[in-house]
């Protein structure tokens, strides 16, 4: 069965980069969100298995999304893909329950190891 996946990033290029970096064997149904608020609307109303989440975004940033996911006990995996790569940011993201922290720009090599590790491919 296809995995429902949400790609959340304010950049069109970044969203395309995620799609392009996923292996062909990855069976998924994709939705996109251009900021944190859009992402939460989707996460609150639908079952999403996996979220690719940017951090620096307008309206509501990725940290805000992670906090809401945690507070509302929304059941999904989150992989953060960020341009802000400071170690402290990485620590914060992992403490909020993200599965992994990937440095932008994303590519197949960076993603496939994590997806394999969690049995997603």
């Amino acid at each position, binding site marked *: 069965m296809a995995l429902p996946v949400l790609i959340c990033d304010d950049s069109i*290029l*970044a969203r395309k980069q995620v*799609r392009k970096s996923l292996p062909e064997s990855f069976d998924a149904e994709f939705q996109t969100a251009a900021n944190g608020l859009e992402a939460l609307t989707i996460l609150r109303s639908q079952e999403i298995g996996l979220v690719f989440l940017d951090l*620096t*975004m307008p309206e509501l940033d990725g940290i805000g999304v992670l906090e809401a996911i945690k507070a509302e006990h929304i059941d999904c995996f989150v992989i953060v893909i960020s341009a802000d790569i*400071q170690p402290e940011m990485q620590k914060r993201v992992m403490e909020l329950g993200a599965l992994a922290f990937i440095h932008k*720009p994303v590519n197949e090599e960076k993603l496939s190891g994590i997806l394999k590790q969690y049995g997603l491919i």
Partner: protein
Amino acid sequence: MTNLGFSEEQRDCLQEIINVAMGLASDKLARFLNTFVHLRVPSIALVGASLIPAEFESRYRDTEAALVSQGFFGNEGVRGEAIVLYQMENAHKISALLGYDVGDVSEIEMLTDISSILTTTFLNGLAQQLENSLSYSAPRVLSSTNGDLSGMLKNTSFHWEHALKVDISYQLVDHSFNCDMILLIPGEAVSNIKTILDRILEAY
């Protein structure tokens, strides 16, 4: 961004590439200052270089300011000059953070270091994503105690046609620190950049 013929897709692409490069530069700066830096999405704009002195005159009017300028050269005719502008008031905050005395001669040295970290890390990040590589000339520091920043900018930007303005704002944990980065580039570099952006867009 004032577009100079950039399509919405090209603009989005350039903004994302700049965000990634700025993330690298901020990480370096945070390590140098041993602090955490709150990142905001930098606003970018492409303007005629002749407009630069007037654009910054009001922001830096009546303040003590410093300008650090560094040339860069790459493949495919990519070249230009990177300028970082500071209000000295901001520089003093950083000096204090690093334990320098205000007005110390080494403050200028510190500004040169910070500018070098910011511009070379930023430009290397940019170059890597554009599949280019850059070399740099030594940084040059011009400081202004009499508010003549406009004149300094006029002399520096005179030789160039276009300017890519990147408005950087760093919020340190308990201080705020703003500076402006301006990349001065020749006319042909703009069409080169467009070609490269299209190449990247085509790949996705």
